[in-house]
């Protein structure tokens, strides 16, 4: 399209017309060029617009739901980050696709978070090796990645607000799929606040998003959304114990929410449980929850429509395990040992019987 448009206006063409046909031809050609330009321009706009809506629709109906079914985080990171400019370029002729952007930014945020976690492991290793310069540098790299993660996750939350309104006061009317986006948008908001704090608050994500998001999640049915509403509420009760109703043990609530998540095959509530326990320094609870999570992976497969969410949750949990292992041993969770810990009693190490008894 652009090539046809530019052709008649190129200096060579103008020169040729003037030389052979004189002023009249030049005048006619100018009219022709103007007319062609107008037709071509409006034609392109129509085509772009139509194409834009096709992309919009395709992204919402197929790309996003398909991406949620894949279990390869690397592919999901590449897809969501690579697709963003393409999908958003069409917003110049269509309107912003908030749902796609919510999902893409949430995922891109998780990808930056993974990089931040890598840097945090590098920090621990450098620290253990008493390499102060490397430890400092790794810490700076970690904060930078957390800032990128927080920025993306905050964007994801904002797209949710643009689509459904601000959480915390009123509940929007949502069908199941919209509820999934609402869940992800609110979780992205929570993560944006936490990751900004880890980034030394350079992004300045409004901190009240955390409370709003927890309330927003309460709009959803706990069973239908994999125990996340209950897990988020229990997490808040733990941070602010006096807000818990009498007789409610938030730790029990968290465990119950995690069971719901296991049964549904979307274990985001496991991640909430572990992050809450880890945040409060409850090492034994963290270990117990990681063990339960790892065991559940063997018994309960991921929900086929939301494999990606399950895998992302599991990667977040593995990151906590990696940090604990690195703190204790200098390297991350060994292959095949997710759900175990360095100080577990190794029963296979001690012989069941004394060799001398058998040789007597």
């Amino acid at each position, binding site marked *: 399209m652009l090539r046809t448009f530019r052709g008649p206006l190129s200096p060579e063409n103008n020169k040729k017309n003037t030389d052979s046909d004189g002023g009249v031809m030049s005048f006619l050609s100018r009219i022709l060029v103007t007319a062609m330009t107008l037709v071509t321009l409006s034609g392109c706009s129509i085509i772009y617009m139509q194409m834009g809506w096709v992309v919009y629709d395709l992204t919402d109906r197929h790309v996003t739901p398909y991406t949620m079914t894949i279990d390869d985080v690397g592919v999901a990171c590449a897809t969501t980050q690579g697709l963003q400019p393409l999908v958003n370029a069409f917003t110049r002729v269509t309107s912003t696709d908030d749902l796609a952007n919510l999902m893409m930014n949430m995922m891109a945020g998780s990808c930056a978070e993974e990089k931040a976690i890598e840097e945090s492991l590098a920090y621990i290793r450098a*620290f253990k090796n*008493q390499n*102060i310069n490397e*430890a*400092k540098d790794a*810490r700076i790299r970690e904060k930078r990645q957390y800032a990128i993660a927080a920025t993306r996750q905050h964007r994801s939350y904002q797209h949710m607000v643009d689509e459904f309104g601000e959480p915390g006061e009123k509940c929007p009317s949502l069908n199941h799929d919209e509820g999934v986006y609402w869940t992800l948008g609110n979780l992205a908001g929570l993560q944006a606040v*936490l990751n900004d*704090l*880890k980034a*030394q*608050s350079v992004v*300045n994500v*409004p*901190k*009240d998003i*955390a*409370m*709003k998001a927890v309330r927003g999640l309460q709009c959803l049915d706990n069973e239908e959304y994999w125990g996340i509403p209950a897990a988020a509420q229990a997490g808040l009760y*733990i*941070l*602010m*114990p*006096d*807000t818990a109703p009498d007789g409610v043990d938030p730790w029990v609530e968290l465990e119950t929410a995690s069971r719901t998540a296991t049964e549904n095959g979307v274990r985001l509530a496991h991640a909430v449980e572990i992050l809450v326990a*880890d*945040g*409060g*320094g409850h090492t034994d609870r963290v270990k117990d929850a990681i063990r339960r999570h790892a065991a559940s992976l063997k018994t309960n497969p991921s929900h086929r429509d939301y494999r990606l969410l399950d895998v992302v949750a599991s990667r977040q949990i593995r990151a906590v395990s990696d940090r604990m292992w690195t703190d204790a041993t200098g390297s991350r969770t060994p292959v095949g040992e997710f759900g175990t810990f360095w100080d577990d009693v190794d029963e296979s190490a001690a012989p069941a019987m004394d060799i001398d008894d058998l040789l007597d």
Partner: protein
Amino acid sequence: MRKLLAIAAMTLAPFASALEQRDICIYDPLGTSGPMFGLMKDYREFALSEGIEIKLHAYTDEKIASDDFKAQQCDGVVMTGARARPYSKFASTIEAIGAVPNDNIMRQVVQMTAAPNAAKYVQSERYEVGGIIPAGAVYLFVNDRSIDTVEEMSGKRIATLDYDEPSIKMVNHVGAAVVPSNSANFSGKFNNGSVDIAYAPAIAYKPLEMYKGLGDKGAIVRYNLAYLDFQLVFHREKFTSEYALKSRQFVASLFDRAIKSIQTHTDEIEEHYWLDLPEAQEKEYDEMLRQVRITLRDEGVYDGRMLKLLKNLRCKENPANAECVENLE
């Protein structure tokens, strides 16, 4: 000879890199994700350069952090100045009511306490302060703008930190009703209307949604009731005096970073919520708080030396203050 030296170097090598291990308990309402925990992660690098490997333990309950420190579960602790009173009366008096009116005076007191000749003031028999981190001015949050005088506060319900003796004294002094609270529930009480007044630093405003309690009629009085800080306290037998001094100096070097964060949080407060007191009324507050400080000093709650230091700093900044003539602190 060279061989001998090489053998000696190889033998000594493991000892050269051996680090002393220490545990520090950190109170941060947000645990390992919180800003104080993050700051202490950076502190670890400093400690490492001094040959100490520090292990950090997050606590979301300040009382438990303090209790664990007291029970020697940790060698150091980070907690608010008000909680640190049993460990250093001198340093915790920085949080004395109305004693630090602005960041500049806070900066000076932090720098001074980090100077070598200040060590004797921040050491006690068993404990030593290893650093002071500012957390910002404490403001009065009222659910009605008309509560702007001491008389207006009389009879009102105030969310009061029940472990903080000066707070209770102050609330009683103005004739208001103490509603026992803690850092985890005071905002809920203010937001749901169970109390009329709360006091908090700007850092609490957004995360705890205190604008809900302020509503359309409420206000934040632009007057520093006290200056909140976090203090790093050591068991003295676990850290050398040299290290503690360097620690105070390192923490003092983080002052600007902390102030920047405080400023960001203060800027988040919508302008229309601020309530500026008329000068005469501000003076009235100054005088009332001074009287309470003197009473608390005489009762042994506040350290007279710190009060005197802060008064001198205030008078240096503003020699025309009435308190500068009377010299009661």
